[in-house]
């Protein structure tokens, strides 16, 4: 402790209490670094052992004081042995932490201004809330794109809430297919009580885990490989191969559910976690069993308060019932799950940025190689998977990889969730066996409302699709052949009334805001792209089109991570498809 230097600012009693209890919940007791201990294992080692408490501590401080006060930060740093300059660097990285006194003591309304909400009147909603005397913060996609305009209220002193959760707690309008007996991934959604373990077990819950124990870790991995399951988080990496690679490394190993879900247009994981949280916990336990993991982590975005509460309750109930903890369900397998909240940073969904964030560092991605399977969370072999990917494990383990592989197409096995939003009859989450075309998925969602102008496929990191391209099959291979990407399963439709130029400019702004800033091509490129589009209103001269192309190539080639690689993709697709010729300015034409 004595190694650290602090300014004279002191924490209030309330701040101290809030921080200490948040840390205690993680098993980090008050600073007791005694002198001889410091001599034995002082400095960096000690600092990094407790550092993972930084994000939870910052959340506690933000909630109690409405901002990250210098005194509160000093106290947190003293407890963790983290230098204040570094902790400030971390706090100032996240949207949900204010590092300046907001000058009021109210809650803050975060209003989504991303594409689905932009075209549904986000600015009008901002004006309304401001007129009603609320403090408003314009937010990137809040993962509620099926029910625009999305709002999230960051509490002061109390819990964060999504107002609509209070009136429609299960998001009933969000799952138009619900009660359809053919559903598999969404079979329990709306049918069970997501707060009751009994209800989950009554619907067949935890049978898959029992079967996994019978099959053994290698047997489970064999089934996953046989199933052909590939990742649903965007990169489509074969899940079994990943788990096998981690299992082959020396322990301790970790499994992580990547529930940071922040790709604009994506809300599937939220709906699953809110309505079927035990399934995510059981599936993560199976992944942990297969990988021989010591522990599982769920990293969930900070703007998902209901999903966080439901998952936490599920983890707690599973532990009480013996489905987590020492020797689970009388097997020889011990495993527990810890939930960590993000704090408003799209980049923290990138798997290596997620590690940095969880470990208490700035959410900056790491250069690969080395890959997470060898150097992941806390430097240990780690399998990171999307919640939707994990959900598939239940069926694979229950019915066998062969039966699973029989569903879907050659290179896209099983079922897929699609997040359909924008100008369609019934926006919401849809489950289909892989195979339908984009047109069929749009029809499933009630068809296009009005005359179709374009579809954004795969999210902000995806591409636009023209109305004459709707026959593309929404499979990994089908989209790849068409030069597109499924991404996280986003299908966002825009009718002729939408100002696509405004949409394209917002996408560029999203990347500008969300770049972590670590590498030059993305930190500067994302800004220059946005500036160019704003200045020209997307009407580019031939030299400007060359410039856009130059920036895109450098960002694709030389950036560290996928954010920079894809930051121009959607924008460029809008130009190459000729979608921007007849647009005017404004939210709607």
């Amino acid at each position: 402790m004595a190694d650290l230097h602090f300014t004279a600012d002191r924490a209030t009693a309330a701040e101290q209490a809030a921080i200490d209890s948040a840390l205690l919940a993680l098993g980090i007791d008050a600073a007791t670094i005694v002198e001889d201990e410091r001599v034995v294992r002082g400095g960096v080692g000690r600092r990094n052992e407790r550092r993972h408490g930084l994000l939870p501590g910052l959340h506690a401080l933000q909630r109690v004081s409405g901002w990250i006060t210098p005194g509160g930060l000093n106290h947190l740093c003293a407890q963790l042995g983290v230098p204040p300059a570094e902790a400030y660097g971390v706090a100032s990285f996240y949207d949900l932490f204010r590092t300046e006194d907001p000058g009021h003591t109210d809650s803050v309304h975060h209003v989504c201004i991303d594409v689905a909400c932009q075209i549904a009147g986000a600015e009008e909603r901002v004006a309304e809330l401001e007129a009603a005397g609320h403090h408003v913060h314009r937010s990137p996609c809040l993962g509620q794109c099926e029910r625009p305009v999305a709002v999230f209220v960051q509490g002061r002193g109390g819990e964060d809430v999504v107002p609509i959760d209070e009136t429609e707690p299960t998001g009933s309008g969000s799952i138009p297919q619900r009660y359809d007996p053919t559903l598999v991934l969404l079979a329990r959604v709306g049918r069970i009580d997501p707060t009751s373990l009994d209800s989950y077990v009554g619907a067949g819950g935890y049978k898959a885990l029992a079967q996994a124990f019978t099959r053994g870790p290698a047997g489970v991995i064999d089934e996953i490989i046989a199933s052909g399951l590939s990742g649903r988080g965007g990169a489509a990496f074969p899940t079994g191969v990943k788990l096998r690679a981690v299992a082959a490394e020396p322990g301790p190993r970790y499994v992580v559910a990547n529930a940071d879900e922040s790709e604009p247009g994506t809300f599937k994981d939220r709906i699953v976690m809110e309505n079927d949280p035990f399934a995510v916990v059981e599936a993560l336990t199976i992944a942990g069993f297969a990988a021989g993991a010591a522990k599982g982590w769920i990293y969930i975005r900070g703007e998902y308060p209901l999903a966080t509460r439901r998952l936490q309750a599920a983890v707690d109930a599973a532990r009480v019932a013996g489905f987590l903890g020492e020797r689970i369900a009388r097997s020889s397998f011990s495993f527990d799950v810890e939930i960590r909240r993000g704090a408003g940073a799209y980049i923290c969904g990138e798997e290596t940025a997620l590690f940095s964030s969880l470990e208490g560092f700035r959410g900056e991605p790491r250069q690969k190689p080395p890959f997470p399977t060898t150097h992941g969370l806390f430097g240990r072999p780690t399998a990171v998977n999307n919640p939707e990917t994990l959900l598939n494990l239940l069926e694979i383990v229950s019915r066998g990889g062969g039966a699973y592989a029989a569903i879907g197409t050659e290179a896209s096995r099983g079922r897929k969730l699609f997040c359909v939003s924008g100008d369609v009859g019934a926006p919401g989450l849809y489950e289909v066996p892989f195979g339908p075309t984009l047109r069929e998925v749009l029809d499933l969602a009630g068809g296009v409302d009005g005359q179709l102008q374009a579809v954004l496929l795969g999210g902000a990191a995806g591409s636009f699709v023209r109305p004459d391209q709707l026959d593309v099959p929404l499979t990994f291979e089908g989209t790849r052949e068409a030069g597109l990407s499924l991404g996280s399963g986003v299908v966002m439709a825009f009718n002729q009334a939408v100002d696509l130029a405004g949409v394209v400019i917002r996408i560029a702004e999203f990347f500008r805001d969300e770049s972590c800033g670590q590498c030059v091509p993305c930190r500067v490129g994302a800004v220059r792209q946005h500036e160019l589009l704003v200045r020209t209103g997307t009407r580019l001269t031939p030299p400007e089109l060359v410039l856009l192309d130059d920036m895109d190539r450098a960002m694709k080639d030389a950036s560290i991570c996928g954010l920079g690689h894809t930051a121009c993709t959607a924008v460029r697709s809008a130009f190459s498809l000729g979608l921007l010729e007849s647009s005017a300015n404004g939210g709607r034409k």
Partner: protein
Amino acid sequence: MTDITFSIDGRTVTATSGQTILGACNNEGVETPTLCWAPNLTPVNVCRVCVVEVVGSRTLVPSCSRTVEEGMEVLTDSERVRHSRKMVLEFLGSGVDLSQADGLQVWSERYGADPDRYVEPQKMDEEVKIQDNLYVRDYDKCVLCYKCVEACGDDAQHTFAIAVAGRGFGARISTEFDVALPESACVYCGNCVGVCPTGALQFTTEFNLRQAGNWLPETQSVTRTVCSYCGVGCNLELHVQDEKIVKVTSPADHSVTSGHLCIKGRFGWNYVQPS
């Protein structure tokens, strides 16, 4: 240490395992621009000016951190490499004052970087920070190479007075809440100044001379000596102009210092010269 055989620009070369592509290029006399890399710091691979093409790899790779592998085919002058290096230099030039960044001008010319292609680009837009009389921070010149942070932290000083704060284009090198250096943990070792590649961190002596138009590197001599304060034996390089010490450095490859000093060796030389 096993030998690795691979190729650079079609030439077969050998290197030891664990060596970086950059290290191998240096051995082979293949010049490579670098900005965030230094021999006495852990590679952070953030500036991306050193990227090379590895045949078969989807993206370019940073040569400063990527280690050589058997059979790797490295291209250092392909169209993709030239393009990305050019764009990195152009992007930097469009937002940062690179006038004192050593060597970058040559590379910018070689690759044809044209920062003027950007209309009214957002800049760093920072005030010069003069908070003491030892060194000056002018973040208009900062390329966010992380070198100062590393030197202040794990790679040398372990003081952790400065870190990267903010996100994206708003990221800046900062103390906690941007408090002035004298109120921060800074111990004025000047190791951050020693590694800064752009002149964003600068001895006050140098800064004042430059302001007055009197900074004349061609007239300066460099004298190597041993610091007289304690028995560690740090080597100092005294940069002298007009018979006055104007700054002090230490060789990055020196076995005692690795280029890093403490406040006494770095700044405590006024007693040598009459004021």
